[in-house]
C-alpha cells in the first residue's frame, strides 16, 4: 500500500513534541536545580557548581541508600523469578485448564491493587499484636513479633509484598507462554525418558528464553518503583535499613529539610545511572532475543 500522505507526520509529530517537552523540561531542570542551592522554604538561590554532588559522596546516608537500592533490586528481581517460574510449571503440569484459567485471573489481582493498598493490606497482616500473617508465630513463641520493626527482617518483609504482586503476575504470563509452546518437542523429550523437570529445564525454558529475559528486564525497571511500598510499610525504617534512593531523595527534598537542590542532585545521578544501565541492557536484551 503505497500512498503519498502526510498522515504519519500529522499523527506523530505533535504527540512526540508534547512527549519530548514533558520529558525534557523536568530532566533539564533537574540538572539546573542540582547545580544551585535552592531550598523549598526560600526561593532565592545561587549556583554552586558541583557542590551538591561532592557532598553526596561523603554523605553516609546517601551511600547507605545506594546499597539498600541495589540490595532491593537484587532481592526482588531474583525472588520474583524464583517464585514465578516454578509456580507456572506446577500450574501447567498439575491442574486442569479450566482451574488454571480461573487462577490466572486470581493471580492478577495483587498487581492491579494500588501499591498503597497492597502495602497496607500486608502491614495490617504483619501487625505484631493482631496481624493474621504473624498469628502462627505469635502462637508458637507466645510473643508479639514485629517483622517490620526488626532491622534483620524489615527489608525481606517488604520484599514479600513486592514478590506477591509481581511473582504471581509473572507466573500467569509464563503459564500463558507455556500454553503457546508447540507440544512436539516436549513430547519427544518425554519419549526419550526425560524426567519432567528435565523437560522444563532443557526444552521448555530454553524455548521461552527470550520472553524470560524480557520479564527480568521489566522487573528490573519496576523494582525501581518501590517507594510506595516502603513509604507505607516502614518509611525507610527501622533506622535507615530500608531507605532506598527514592525514599532518601524524598525525605531530603520534602520532609526533613526541604533541600530541593540536594535532592535534585540525587535525582540526576539516578536518571543517569538508570538510563545508561537500561539502554545498554535493552540493546543486550534485543541481541539475546534475536540470537
Amino acid at each position: 500500500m503505497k500512498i503519498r500522505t502526510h498522515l504519519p507526520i500529522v499523527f506523530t509529530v505533535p504527540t512526540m513534541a508534547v512527549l519530548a517537552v514533558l520529558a525534557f523540561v523536568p530532566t533539564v531542570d533537574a540538572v539546573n536545580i542540582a547545580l544551585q542551592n535552592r531550598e523549598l522554604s526560600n526561593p532565592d538561590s545561587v549556583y554552586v557548581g558541583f557542590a551538591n554532588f561532592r557532598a553526596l559522596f561523603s554523605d553516609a546516608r546517601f551511600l547507605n541508600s545506594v546499597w539498600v537500592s541495589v540490595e532491593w533490586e537484587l532481592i526482588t528481581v531474583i525472588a520474583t523469578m524464583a517464585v514465578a517460574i516454578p509456580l507456572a510449571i506446577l500450574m501447567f503440569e498439575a491442574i486442569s485448564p479450566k482451574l488454571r484459567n480461573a487462577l490466572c485471573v486470581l493471580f492478577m489481582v495483587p498487581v492491579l491493587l494500588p501499591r498503597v493498598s497492597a502495602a497496607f493490606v500486608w502491614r495490617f497482616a504483619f501487625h505484631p499484636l493482631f496481624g493474621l500473617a504473624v498469628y502462627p508465630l505469635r502462637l508458637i513463641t507466645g510473643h508479639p513479633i514485629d517483622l517490620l520493626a526488626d532491622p534483620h527482617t524489615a527489608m525481606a518483609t517488604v520484599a514479600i509484598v513486592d514478590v506477591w504482586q509481581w511473582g504471581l503476575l509473572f507466573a500467569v504470563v509464563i503459564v500463558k507462554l507455556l500454553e503457546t509452546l508447540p507440544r512436539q518437542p516436549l513430547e519427544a523429550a518425554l519419549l526419550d525418558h526425560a524426567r519432567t523437570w528435565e523437560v522444563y529445564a532443557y526444552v521448555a525454558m530454553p524455548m521461552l528464553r527470550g520472553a524470560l529475559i524480557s520479564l527480568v528486564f521489566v522487573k528490573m525497571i519496576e523494582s525501581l518503583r518501590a517507594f510506595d511500598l516502603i513509604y507505607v510499610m516502614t518509611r525507610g525504617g527501622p533506622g535507615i535499613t530500608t531507605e532506598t534512593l527514592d525514599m532518601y531523595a524524598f525525605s531530603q527534598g520534602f520532609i526533613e529539610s526541604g533541600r530541593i537542590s540536594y535532592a535534585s542532585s540525587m535525582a540526576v545521578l539516578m536518571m543517569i545511572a538508570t538510563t545508561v544501565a537500561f539502554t545498554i541492557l535493552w540493546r543486550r536484551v534485543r541481541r539475546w532475543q534475536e540470537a
Partner: protein
Amino acid sequence: MARGLSRFAARIVIALAAMSVIVPLLWTLLSGFKNRVDIVTPTPMIFFTPTLDNFAYVLGRESVRTGLLNSIIVSGASVLIGAVFGLPCAYAVARYPMRFAHDIQFFVLSLRFLPPVAIAIPLIVIWLDVGLYDTRTALIITYSLLTLATTIWLAIPAFKRVPPEIEEAAFVDGYGPYAIFFLIALPVAWKSLIGAIVFSFVLVWNEFLIALMLTTSDAKTLPVVASEMTQLGRDVPWGILNASVILLSLPPLLFLGVLSSFLSSVLKPRNQG
C-alpha cells in the same frame, strides 16, 4: 504412585499461592465491616457483628470526597489525553514505514526508565514557579507523560495485529488514509486498544509518589489521602483504614476481566506478521 504424590504436592503449593491472594484480601474486606474491638483481638475473629460505620465515616469525610473527585478528574483527563494523542501516533508508527520508528519506540520505552522521584523533584520547582503547584492541572499534565507513553507502547502491537488486507481493501474502495484509520483500523483493533487504555488508567489511578510530591491539600488524590490515614498515630482506627483501602482498590479491580483478556491476547502467538 510417585507421580500421583508429586501431583498432590504441586496442588498444595498452588493452593497456598491462591490462599496468599484470597486470605489477606478477604481479611481486609472483613475488617472493613468490623468494629474496632473485633479487630484488636489477640486471636483473629472470623465471626462478628458487621457494621457499616467505617464506610459511612470514610465516605462522609471531606478529604476522602475531595480525593475521590480529584482522582476521577485527574485520571480521567490524563487517560483521555493519552488516548487522543497516543492512538494516532501508535497507528502511524505501526503502519507507515518511518525512518524514526525504532527511535520513537525506544524513546517511549525509555521514559519508563526514569525514576518517578527524579521527575517529581524538578516538577515541584517548576509548578511552584509557574504557580500551578497543588492543582489538578499540574497533575493532569504530569500524568499525561505516563498515559501517553503507556498507550503508545501498548497500542503499536495492537495496530500491527490488524490484518493489512482489510486496510488495503478499504483503500481500493476509495477510502483516504485518515478514513482508513478512523473507520477501519480503530474499530478493528478496538478490543486490544481498550485494554491499553484501561492499563494506563490503572497506572495513574494507582500512582502515589508523584501525587504525594506535587500536592499538599487541594489536589490530593485518593492514594495520598488513604496513605495519610495509614500513618495515623498509636490508637489506629483500623476499621476505617481498611474501609478506605477497599474504596481505593475497587476501581482497578473492576477492570480485572478486561485486563486479563488483554494479557491473554498479547501473549497469544500471532497469526500473521
